[in-house]
């Protein structure tokens, strides 16, 4: 298998009036071609910022402070504006959380699909429309020809997200970054959209980075996951292994907060406290104030993300 994406020590900072914050702190992970990878963590953990940093779409006051993103052998952080534009939406496509907010309200579905294809290929509008209809069919949207003339608000939430998926598919990318793709949707259609995304990734052998706070979703779709906390990855490994045998105290806490891991009627365990804001992350391990196992060393020394005996990587002093 070939490596698709290699992220090394990726660091993103924001220069805010209140001070400099590190929203993504030395993140590294790898993705094979066609692999589905989950990025999990509480809201504010830095998942979305990581996703945008991969395609170098961090705008002021943020900036990529260091690290590298190698995609199919090319260093993306070193590309010119025009070169990275050709990667975005072409080789790497993004799906955002709320399709009502992501689709432009004054442009038809057709325009928004055609322009995407034309941004990356020299192709006539007629041909691009044909490709758009075909792609809409792939995401199981009924009467696709008619949809091209419709505006986003004429579609239901589920249909809109299918359109967004179609926009991503139309250029046949090798990687899709889906940032909470079902969070804004009705519960009843969340599973439908997730299943569609999964089957499309399998069919077209596309890599997927699924960003979510929902461990249940990620465990059904991905092969490997990284757990993020306060801008850092605290645990990476095979999804099955992490879900069954979480090692990092934070991962353990997240999993025991899931209803399916508890017999009915028993109280769910919430991790005590809240994630610190990025302006006051404690020294040492960022999780130490909420951790039951925290010792003196945890307040002094930050644990590195290291290979452990079980074959995964964990950032904790107490995992062997």
């Amino acid at each position, binding site marked *: 298998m070939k490596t698709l994406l290699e992220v090394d020590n990726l660091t993103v900072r924001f220069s805010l009036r209140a001070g400099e914050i590190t929203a993504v702190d030395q993140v590294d992970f790898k993705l094979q071609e066609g692999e589905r990878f989950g990025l999990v963590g509480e809201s504010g953990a830095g998942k979305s910022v990581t996703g945008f940093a991969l395609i170098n779409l961090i705008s002021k006051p943020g900036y990529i402070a260091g690290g590298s993103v190698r995609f199919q052998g090319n260093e993306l952080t070193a590309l010119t504006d025009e070169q990275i*534009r050709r990667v975005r939406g072409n080789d790497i496509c993004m799906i*955002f959380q709320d399709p009502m*907010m*992501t*689709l432009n*309200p*004054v*442009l038809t579905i057709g325009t928004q699909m055609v*322009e995407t294809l034309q*941004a990356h290929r020299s192709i006539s509008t007629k041909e691009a429309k044909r490709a758009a209809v075909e792609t809409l069919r792939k995401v199981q949207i009924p009467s696709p020809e008619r949809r091209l003339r419709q505006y986003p608000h004429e579609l239901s939430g589920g249909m809109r997200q299918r359109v967004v998926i179609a926009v991503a598919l139309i250029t046949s990318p090798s990687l899709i970054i889906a940032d909470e793709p079902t969070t804004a949707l009705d519960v009843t259609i969340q599973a439908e959209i997730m299943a569609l995304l999964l089957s499309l990734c399998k069919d077209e052998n596309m890599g997927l980075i699924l960003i979510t706070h929902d461990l249940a979703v990620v465990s059904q779709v991905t092969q490997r996951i990284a757990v993020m906390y306060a801008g850092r990855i605290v645990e990476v490994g095979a999804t099955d292994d992490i879900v069954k045998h979480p090692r990092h105290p934070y991962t353990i806490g997240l999993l025991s907060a899931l209803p399916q891991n508890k017999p009915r009627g028993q109280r769910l365990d919430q991790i005590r406290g809240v994630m610190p804001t990025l302006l006051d992350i404690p020294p040492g391990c960022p999780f130490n104030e909420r951790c039951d196992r925290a010792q003196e060393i945890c307040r002094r020394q930050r644990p590195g993300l290291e290979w452990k005996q079980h074959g995964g990587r964990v950032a904790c002093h107490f995992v062997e």
Partner: protein
Amino acid sequence: MFAFSVRRVAQAVLVMFVISFIGFAIKYAVGDPVRDLVGISVSVEEREKVREQLGLNDPFVVQWARFLQKAMQGDLGMSYFFKRPATDVILKKAPATLELVICSSFIVILVSIPVGIFAAVRPNSWLSRFLMGASIVGVSIPVFLTAIVLIYIFAVELHWLPSYGRGETQMLWGVWDSGLATADGLQHLILPSIALSSIMLPLFIRLIRAEMKEVLETEYIKYARAKGIAPWRVLIVHAFKNTLLPVITVGGVQLGTMIAFTVLTETVFQWQGMGFVFLEAVERGDTSLLVAYLVFVGAVFVVVNTVVDIVYGLVNPMVRIASRS
């Protein structure tokens, strides 16, 4: 869309009805059509006879109905000073004013859109700061001062442009007395148009900048960038198109203000348009002419606003759908 347009036109007719009422009320209250007809040197008895003949002793409502009926046929009474139908006098002067307003609108559109977009995209550049500062100063300078300064610099000192009048005009299609058709006419248009546009420019620059800034922060703009859409297309097609709705709305309303300001501009530049004639009519107590001006300007305003609303409907898919169902 069709139903929406019909509804909008019906509203416009209603507004015209109200305007005609106001016009008639003015005429009824201050006008003296007998004087308009026979002059001042006629005896009281004779005047009373003429009043009776003209139906001026009829009840208000009857007279209003008569006024409406005539107005519908374009008859708004005789101008006491010009001894001609007031409608004719106004219509003859209309092209001058309309050309002035149209040219000023073009200046506003051509300048405020690029400047507003630039100031939104580069809010921290020194040029943006300068333009924003200048626009604050711009709002607070009255038109007649702008006009006088323009005349002083470009006409008196530099001798580049004429300082007053319409210059050489040419009759188009037999009805439209145009200054746009001759080089001399165009030269005469420049200073008055700039002076008139100066009241609207700061407002529109600031409006477009504010709207653009807001739109540029939205998810769909970030999404467009994530799709690899070219920067110019993100700016114009994705962002600017979304600012168009509020800009068109404000534009429609401000056009009325602009017509009002033509009275000042035309006076300073001795521009032989409706505004100029209107001021004269006020001085001479020429009520019919005054009312004709009011009704005509009201009509222009109503037509423009109706067109703006329909264009708004074309730009805004939401309105289009709402009217479809």
